[in-house]
Each structure stands twice: as C-alpha cells, then as structure tokens.
C-alpha cells in the first residue's frame, strides 16, 4: 500500500531564511509521528506545507495521492477541508461562536452542517455539557478539546497538531494526550509537533529536525 504521506526533498525558503532544506520521509496510514527539534528548525513550516496552509519552494509533499504543491488556492481550500484536521497550540477557536458552532463551522466549510454529529464529536472529547459555551467561557484544556473535535468532524485523512499541549497545564496536557492516544488507537494518522521528549515518546516514531534538515529518525519506544 502507498504511504499516506510522502515527502521528497522538500525545500521552503522565506525571504532570506531556509526553513526547510531538503526533507524527505514517508508516513504510513495509521502512524503517530512526533516531529521534534529546537525552535526555528522548521517544524511548523513542515506541518503547514503538509496541511496546505503554505506551499513549498521546491520538492514534493504528497498527501493521500495529492501533491499539495500543485494545488491552486481553491484546490488548497478543498484539500484542507477534506483531508486535514488542524490542532493549533493557541486553539484558534472563533471567539463569538459556541463550542458547538465552532465544530459546525468546519462542517459548513466542508459541506453541510449536522448538529447531531457535531454534538456527538463534542461528547467524544468529553464536552457534552459545554456545547453551548463560548471559547472565553472554557478552560484552555476544554478549548483544545473543542479544537480536536473540530479537527475530527470531517473524518480527515491526516491530523496535524502543532504543539497541541504547548499552552496547557499538566492536567489538561494529560487529557489531550489521552485523546490523541485514543484517536491513534482508532487508526487515525497523526503528525504532532512537540518540544517535550516525554510526549515524543508516546508516538510510534520521531522525526527530528535541525536547521531545516532531518537530524535523525528513530523509532520511539512503544508505551
């Protein structure tokens, strides 16, 4: 079976910074990958290109058979709606929409809304009694769980999480990691950026970046 993600010699240059400098790797469907490396090593850039938020300067990034470098603006929007579920460090919920509406927003941009399904997704992340709350009325951990529900709602091929626990206290970090572990167990493919080695160890595999290049790639210890 073809790998779900296939990256070949990926380069990304900003004005005078080489953020990615020839990165290649593959990810099989169902894998949980931890992307690690020091600040500025290109982790976010890599995630953004895979998620169709950014385009590479050269190289290929194939996700589920689609080369994201070849997509135009509308193609990228469709790609993000159908194939990707994003989880950001800053949660990034729309502040004037309730938890439920934030999840339904993703349904709306994907195709049509289904309130029942959206409620179900929020129940799945343990927020049954928080659906009508606004982001401002939720704790950080709760907001991130809404973001996870939003990422899952359209059954994406790939979940991209950029330091999903970076803004959370230990208790909430535990809850979100437990969720990711469950998603992984259900067969979701997850690429997760993290600083903490302890979190990286939870993944199947680690990809280390340094100065935009692959440092080492080693199989993490299975927990």
């Amino acid at each position: 079976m073809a790998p779900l993600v296939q990256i070949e010699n990926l380069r990304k240059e900003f004005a005078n910074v080489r953020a990615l400098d020839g990165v290649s790797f593959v990810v099989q469907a169902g894998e949980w990958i931890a992307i690690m490396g020091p600040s500025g090593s290109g982790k976010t850039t890599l995630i953004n290109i895979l998620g169709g938020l950014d385009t590479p300067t050269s190289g290929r990034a194939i996700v589920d058979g689609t080369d994201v470098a070849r997509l135009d603006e509308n193609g990228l929007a469709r790609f993000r709606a159908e194939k990707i579920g994003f989880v950001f460090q800053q949660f990034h919920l729309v502040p004037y929409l309730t938890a439920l509406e934030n999840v339904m927003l993703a349904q709306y941009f994907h195709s049509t809304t289904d309130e029942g399904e959206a409620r179900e997704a929020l129940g799945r992340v343990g927020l049954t009694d928080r659906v009508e709350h606004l982001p401002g009325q939720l704790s950080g951990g709760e907001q991130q769980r809404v973001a996870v529900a939003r990422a899952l709602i359209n059954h994406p091929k790939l979940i991209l999480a950029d330091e999903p626990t970076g803004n959370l206290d230990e208790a909430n970090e535990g809850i979100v990691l437990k969720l990711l572990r469950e998603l992984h167990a259900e067969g979701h493919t997850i690429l997760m950026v993290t600083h903490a080695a302890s979190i990286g160890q939870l993944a199947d595999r680690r990809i280390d970046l340094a100065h935009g290049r692959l440092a080492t790639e080693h199989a993490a210890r299975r927990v």
Partner: protein
Amino acid sequence: MFARIVGQSFARNPRRKLLTMAALVLGITVATATLTVALEVGDRMAREFRSLGANLLVTPESDTLPLEIGGVDYRPVDEGAYLQEADLGKLKTIFWRHNILGFTPFLDVPAYVSATGGATTLIGTWYDHEVAVPDGTTFKTGVSATHPWWKIQGRWFSDAANECVVGASLAAKYPGAIAIGKTIYVAQTEKSSDIRPLVVTGIVSTGDAEDNAILVPLSVAQGISNHPGQFRQLFVSALTKPADAFAERDPKSLTPTEYDRWFCSPYISSISYQIKQVIPGVDVRAIRRVAETEGRILSRVSTLLWIVTLAALIAAGLAVAATSAAAVLERRVEIGVMKAIGATNTSVTALFLTEHLTLALIGGAIGFFLGAGLARFLGASVFGTPASPRFILLPVVLGLAILVALIGGLIPLRRAARFDPAPILRGE
C-alpha cells in the same frame, strides 16, 4: 449556518461593527436630512413659481401713465394704444411656448353702473378662455392661470355669458344692490342707450384695485367701450430660469453662438424678447422680481445641499474604509482559522460582505429616521415649517448606504480574503 455565523458575529462581537455602523449612521443621517431639505426646497421652488402666476406684464409701447384714483381709471377711454386680441394665439408659437403657462388680457373701462349709481371701473378679462393658436390647436387660459391667488366667493363668470364678478370692497359698499344672483345694469355713461344686464355670479377679493371694480368678460368690456377685439394690458405667466449675469446681456451684443444659447434659455429676458418678436409694438416688463431673487437663493441653497450630501457620503465611505480595515486586521486570526478549516476566499468574502450589507441596511435605516428628524429641525429653521419625512427616500438612502459600505469596505475586505493564513496562525 451562514446566517448563524453572521448573526452571532453581530450579537457577540459588536464592538468593531459599532464604529463602522456609527460612520454609516452619521453619513446617512446627514445625507437623508440634506436630501429631504433639498427635495423640500425643490418642491417649494416649483410651488412658489407656480403660485407666482403672472410674472410678465405686456403693455403697448410708450403708453400713458394710468390716471387712477381709488381704483377708478380716469383716463379717457380713447387715449393710448391698444393691443389686438387676435395676436394672442401667437404667444403659443414662440420657442419657449411650453413655458408660457398662461396669459390674460385686461381692458379697464370706466362705466356707469346702475347699482352704484355712479362711475365704476369695469375690468374686462378672461377667466377660462379658449384661445385659437395659429397651429390649429386651442389653449385655455385666463385669470385662473395667471392670478391663482384671487379668491372667489360663488363662481367666476363664464367668458361667453352676460355675467360678472364684483370686487369685495365694492360689493361690501352696496350690500343691498350687489349680491350673488342679482342682476346689475351697466352702460358706458348714464345716458347711453346700450344698457347691458349682468348677473353677479361671485364676489372676488384680490387685495388689489380689482376689489373696487367689477370684473366682466373681456367681450363685454370691449362692447361697452367700443373697442372690439382690443385690450390694454396682458399678464403672462411664464416658467423661467432664475436670471444670471448672462441673462442680463443685451441680445444685440451677443455672438451668434451666445445668442443661440441665450435664446434657448428660458430667462425672463429671452422670453420677453420672443414675445416682442411675435407681438410688435409692446413693452414687456418683469413683475414680481422679489420672488425671482428668492428663487435664485433657493436654487443656490439646493446646490449647496447636494454638495453637502455628497461630502457626507464620501466622509462616511472613508470612515467605513478606516474602521473596516481596523476590524479586518483585528479579525485576521479568525479569517486564518476559517481558511485552515477549509474556507475559500470566496466564502470568507461572502461572510464579511454580508456583515457589511447588514451594517449598511441597519445603519441606513437608523440614519434615515435620524435624518428625517434632523430635516424637520432644519426645515423649521430654514423655512419656518418642518420638512416632512420623505419615505420615497428610504430605498434611495438604503441604496446609498449599501454603496458607501461596499465601496468603503472593498479594499479592506479584499485584503481580508487574501490573507495568507500560515503567518497569521503561527501567532508570531
């Protein structure tokens, strides 16, 4: 969901919109007020010019000054020149014939009236007379058109009958002998054998010399005085353009092009000139010049109001541009998030555009009502009576609000839709 997003954005995130809304409300308030007042000015001008009645007086050239004492003309009947009734149809053949709204000939005749037992002025005129125009049509005119402010009690004489209308002061002097329905007898002098019975059909008050006279059909006055087909004065009501410097020029000093332009502007002077061309040997004088200057001021006020309207709308547009640029900047993360979860540029634009249109409609509606209130106040201080709200302006004003909101929001919204989500979502 679309409506829900827009609705929640309004309900829960009103802060930024309030500024844009305030800009729109202010602009539309001023625009509504000025437009309402401008319409009022236009209406008043039209009304004033219409109610003006006659604004030109045509007399035979170098006529003697009237010798009038107590409303009675003591000039010998034969003195002075006369104008020909048969020429009047030509007035409807001049270039500005459609601006000739009406004309009325007058023939004052000293007469002996049975009811007063003495000399009384008869004024022969038309009330609603059919005039044959050389082109074969007819034109109905008379004091009904040129002197609309004359008040009649009872009814006017009919131009072909042996009827008359008596001036209010005169009628008041002879309450027994002169009353509606009574017949009076008139003749040129006490000794004339040509005595005519006239039925009084109405009492007229004009606030002028006619109040002491008897108004009769022109043909009756002509018959009594032996001046068939003649009259002495003609009042003309013409729709004219307020005079400007160009209007006062002597047509002889104009170049052919200037002459054409002057001839083709409905100035009082050019219409007078054209009247003299078809009825030679007359003097044409403008009367009621006060109203003319008033009209000139009103038309300047109205120009000023249009400029203020435009300025208010432009200012509102700029304010909308500034506030929506700030709003869009503040909401760029939100835009980035929407794009990250699959929104296209088009759907982001549609959302923001709808917000703008909603703002325009709400702001426009509020502005309309505030503006109507302001117009009442302005009208009261300018004209002495409040300008009534014009609901016909509501759709116009809403359209203007939408235009202003869209034009003002165009650049910020386009920029919003094209925000590159990656740098925004990095949160740097």
